């Protein structure tokens, strides 16, 4: 039985475009990415994005299990997106996959596959685990963003990073990176991910209603957002390598 029912705010955005959390329409929430945070995983990342806290681990290439799932001429790329029971701001979520998390696992998988050199690792599996510890809107794009960094950390050959960011519709405004209230009571959410080096789209979903013009503007805004996130991804990877180098030098 839910103890609290969240209430819709009177206004999500003011006429001058100031959003409920004070941001401008084209402003991201604060984002922090740490690489290599887990011991056992082959690669890992921890993403703080607004109020989101997401842990990503990558295992592989490793023997595909169960065996009959293996594909002879390319790696089996599998993603498992999961929300911890204590991650929602409202009621406890029952552990285990539900229909939403099964769909999100699929779209995250498809968002990452285009950059992985799958054909180099026939018969093996590459497993990507996205664990949402705290959710606050935009977990799938934060997960994709962390996952491509974790793939790099695992040393898996990739064509480049995949970078995600949502855009949303709040009243007549197209806004970047919708927050919790905008996600719940706004007029549309459009998560997007780009393979930044070519500008190709690897994730695109939407609910809500959009004129063709709004759709075009939304795509452009998402791309601009992803450019900023991309810089943070690269910096996180460099930091890890700097640290490793430093540790290497200290060892000498």
């Amino acid at each position, binding site marked *: *039985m*839910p103890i609290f*029912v*969240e209430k819709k705010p009177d206004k999500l955005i003011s006429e001058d475009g100031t959003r409920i959390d004070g941001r401008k329409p084209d402003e991201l929430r604060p984002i922090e990415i740490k690489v290599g945070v887990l011991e056992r995983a082959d690669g890992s990342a921890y993403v703080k994005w607004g109020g989101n806290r997401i842990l990503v681990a990558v295992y592989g290439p490793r023997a595909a299990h169960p065996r009959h799932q293996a594909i*002879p*001429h390319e790696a089996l790329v599998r993603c498992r997106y999961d929300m911890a029971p204590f991650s929602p701001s409202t009621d406890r979520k029952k552990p285990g996959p539900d*229909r*939403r998390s*099964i*769909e999100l*696992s*699929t*779209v995250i998988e*498809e968002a990452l*596959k*285009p950059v992985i050199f799958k054909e180099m690792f026939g018969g093996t599996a590459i497993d990507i685990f996205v664990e949402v510890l705290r959710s606050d809107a935009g977990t799938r794009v934060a997960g994709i963003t962390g996952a491509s960094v974790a793939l790099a950390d695992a040393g898996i050959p990739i064509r480049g990073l995949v970078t995600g960011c949502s855009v949303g519709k709040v009243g007549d405004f197209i806004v970047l990176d919708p927050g919790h209230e905008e996600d719940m009571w706004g007029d*549309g959410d*459009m998560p997007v991910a780009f*393979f930044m080096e*070519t*500008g*190709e*789209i*690897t*994730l*695109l*979903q*939407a*609910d*809500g*209603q*959009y*004129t*063709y013009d709004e*759709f*075009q503007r939304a*795509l452009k805004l998402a*791309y601009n957002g992803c450019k900023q996130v991309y810089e943070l991804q690269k910096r996180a990877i460099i930091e890890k390598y700097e640290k490793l180098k430093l540790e290497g030098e200290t060892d000498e």
Partner: protein
Amino acid sequence: MSKKIVELLLKDHINALVERGIRRDGRGLNDYRDIEIMSETATHGDGECWVKLGKTQVITGVKVDVGPPYPDTPDKGVFVVNVELLPLASPTFEPGPPGPESIEIARVVDRTIRSAEAIDLEKLVIKRGELVYILFVDIYVLDYDGNLFDAATLSAVGALSKTTIPVVHLDEEGNINADPNERFKLELKSKPATVTMVKIGKKLVVDPNLEEEQVADGRITFGVKEDGRICAIQKGPGSLSIEQVEEAARIALSKYEFLSAYYR
């Protein structure tokens, strides 16, 4: 391994044709296959629609039930979409609970209908916070020859547009009463459709059949509605450029009139 080679050769062949604007079944790149809405009464649903999209066949039955609303929407009816990929429909479908493929289709159809605000859920309340109508939309795939997204949406929206609901009264003691002859029509505020395209080589191809799906390099689905708006998007495998995605949106919007004719 030899299967793989045949696939690659077929892929090359289809790619070469599509490059020249030709499809193996003679259609233009933006053409749908023949669509047929079967007139047969084939279910015990409160609404139903059996669609043939080329050789793909999908049937939807709507069943109306009553029950308590969700705690956070006491003033709304409930609407549930379920897709079953029957093992009858393809050698690759296995019995068992819905897998990722059928869940994705169900969620995209659900999202399209919900985003289009097709159903006025507030009209499906019998007593606020206590009893509402529940619409179960069960989409059963009978024969799988490609493009389940569009066939499923056509079938689901088609079935909803023919649905009638028994008038249910709740008496003082909490018992429900209903007269089998007293029913009302479910009014739809919008009748959205989805348009699915695959990327073959550098071209977009509308309404892919099974072999086109198998050789495609990418897939994208748009939900579209009467007023020329997009009401849902779902990219599948592969990657597309911004330009391709925009082109896909324009094609999808241009197809609404053609598809919606089958809702009449």
